[in-house]
């Protein structure tokens, strides 16, 4: 099953991946990483198609997409 791995330590919580995920599969976590950012997380495994749009728009280069 397609899935994405987001490096929560490096993610700066910019929300771009969440905004552009065509399946609305991502959301921002309430947790803070050590730099004080709320990282993005996969909200719904089921929805993700592994289209990698999230990785495409991520300026932090912190998303890996597996398919």
């Amino acid at each position, binding site marked *: 099953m397609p899935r994405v791995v987001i490096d929560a330590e490096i993610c700066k919580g*910019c*929300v*771009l991946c969440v905004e552009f995920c065509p399946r609305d599969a991502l959301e921002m976590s309430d947790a803070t990483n050590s730099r004080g*950012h709320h990282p993005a997380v996969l909200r719904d495994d089921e929805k993700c198609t592994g289209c990698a*749009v999230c*990785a495409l728009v991520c300026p*932090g280069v912190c998303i*890996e*997409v*597996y398919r």
Partner: protein
Amino acid sequence: MAEEKLINRYPDALTDVEMRYCPGCTHGTAHRLVAEVIDELGVRDRTVTIATVGCSVFAYEYFDTDAVQAAHGRGPAVATGIKRVHPDSVVFTYQGDGDLASIGMGEIVHAAARGENFTVIFINNAVFGMTQGQMAPTTLMGQKTTTSPRGRTAEEAGWPIRVCELLDTLEGPAFIAREALSTPQRIRSAKRSIKRAFETQLAGRGFSLVELLSSCWTWWDMEPVEAIYHIENTMTEHFPLRIFRDCLTGQSEEVDSNA
């Protein structure tokens, strides 16, 4: 079911140094695209990155290539010096709008006119990011910046410069395109142009430049996502997306963002 496969490898041409950009700043996106292109063309070991002065000043830490940090605006002159010594190196400058279009106008025009065989990645975010958000030569009319606190007016500061159109009057350039780092489609298109630009250089055809409309939400006083829509909806009005020149295809065309 097939093996699970990583479909977006972290580019070889990027080091693992974490980039210092603001969250959501599309400098990061631009870096990734350039690195992917360098990987795809297999030229990392003979690439020289020219880092210039702006938020991307540390580009020499991020690109896993040989690199030279150039004085503000002088990247094209430095690139010229390198290329005239090592014509087989793959050289690109990475310049902001302050760097390229303000202090560095002379150097970019002349490198283009000479048809120097290197590639320019031009990040147009309509503002001086690094120095805290002053007006740039590409700042839109009415835009508030830290040095146009009442919004840019023609009377005080004139009109924004369209770099691609300006360079397109010269005979030297072999590839000129303007793309936007806004929607996923635009980003894909941007990567195609970046690749084209490097291919132009590899073919020895001369000067290539890709302008990337980029965000600086920090100084635009917006949220990161809002800034992306600002690029898409507002910046592209003054800065139309277009492949102005492509010596390899001989074409000039509107950017097709759905391809």
